[in-house]
């Protein structure tokens, strides 16, 4: 068990090291998040709509669209430099490789999601008086569900002739439950509704994250092998 965790962590650590030396994906996702926040601000007529009412929905759309930018490049480095052949020949089981990639993406997207909440909170003057632990759990589970699917499909998209443009077509229809439960729970928490109201959302987001992380780990070898 310990060896397995070490293997998973080795993949995550490698991805994070590469990322924190270049900041390629984080810069793209972070800049996207801030700029979208600015643009949304100009696209809302405050005489008709209160930005606070729709902020949570915009936050989730920004996480999903911005996340696509970064997640689409999960396997680009390996594919470009032929490093994938090396990784496939190494003794690491493919599900451990997948879980390592998912964990790396989860950490990167969590950083981005935190930035999105911060930026939107600032731009839309949001005040949050609810339970922050529940909010973190909602966003964390939503992000895990999101990366479990996008990591699997980004391996597919990278290896197809359509490249990254294929990823949204494949993933968006499948992400509906994450968006429904994540965005509504966030809206309720921002509106100061009791925590009991989002219990069901938490359970469904957890179910989604577990099902697709397990399915992704099982199916990954069919996507990555030649």
């Amino acid at each position: 068990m310990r060896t397995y965790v070490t293997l998973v962590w080795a993949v995550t650590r490698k991805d994070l090291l590469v990322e924190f030396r270049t900041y390629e994906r984080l810069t793209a996702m972070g800049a996207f998040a801030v700029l979208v926040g600015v643009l949304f601000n100009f696209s809302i007529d405050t005489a008709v709509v209160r930005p606070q009412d729709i902020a949570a929905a915009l936050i989730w759309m920004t996480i999903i669209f911005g996340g696509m930018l970064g997640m689409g490049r999960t396997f680009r480095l390996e594919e470009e430099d032929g490093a994938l052949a090396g990784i496939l020949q190494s003794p690491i089981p493919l599900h451990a490789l997948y879980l390592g990639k998912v964990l790396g993406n989860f950490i990167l997207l969590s950083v981005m999601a935190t930035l999105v909440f911060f930026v939107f909170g600032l731009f839309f003057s949001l005040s949050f008086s609810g339970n922050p632990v529940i909010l973190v759990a909602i966003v964390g589970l939503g992000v895990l569900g999101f990366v479990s699917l996008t990591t699997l499909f980004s391996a597919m998209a990278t290896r197809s002739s359509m490249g990254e443009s294929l990823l949204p077509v494949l993933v968006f229809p499948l992400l509906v439950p994450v968006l429904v439960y994540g965005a509504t729970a966030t809206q309720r928490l921002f509106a100061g509704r009791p925590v009991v109201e989002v219990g069901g959302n938490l359970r469904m987001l957890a179910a989604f994250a577990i099902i697709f992380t397990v399915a992704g780990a099982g199916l990954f070898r069919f996507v990555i092998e030649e």
Partner: protein
Amino acid sequence: MSDKQIQWSVGVLGTLGVATVILLHWMVFFWVPTESSMGIVQRIFYIHVPAWWIAFLGFGLVGLCSAVYLWLGDERLDRAAVAGAEAGMVFTTIGLLTGPLWGRVAWGTWWEWEPRLTLALILWFIYLGYFLVRRSTANPEQGKRFAAVIGIIGVLDIPLIHVSVTWLRSLHPQAVILSAENPMNLESSMGVTIGVGLLAFSLVFASLFLARYAVAGYERELDLRDATLAGT
């Protein structure tokens, strides 16, 4: 099944299917009584409901064949999966077109974000991704594996999508045919018409499925010949 047997079956099933579809339309327009509360527009249900049942059958077939294909690697299962997906997409499109026609009269709007309609649209897009992936790889074997993965993930996701969109909002007329509280509470002639609809679409589905299955076999033969020619 040999090629001859498949061709013969496609012909027989197709002819029977078209004949039953014509019979169904005659029953819908001239035979079955008008439903009292919804009026004449309810007649579209005899096309709409069986189309959905067949669409879901197609999708179930894709999921099942995809899973067993990845497990056993038998070429025929991939052919069955793609045949199920293409025939399923035809019926999903019929369901998506007939639903709004009814909705325009009953709800007063062409489109409503109602759970089953939403699920139908999402299902259609999952099918679309399935076909896109198959065509977007240089290596056809890889495309088949990718498509099988989408088929499995899609089938796992459908119940979650259904639960989530139902939880969000619900407007669709409740299922009255297979409802647990009130089983088969339709007028008998209406039940018969639905049954004929189901039979008609099943026959058409079976003939389309077999035809596509055979074509997938020819495509594979051509690929193999191309590969042999390229190698010589």
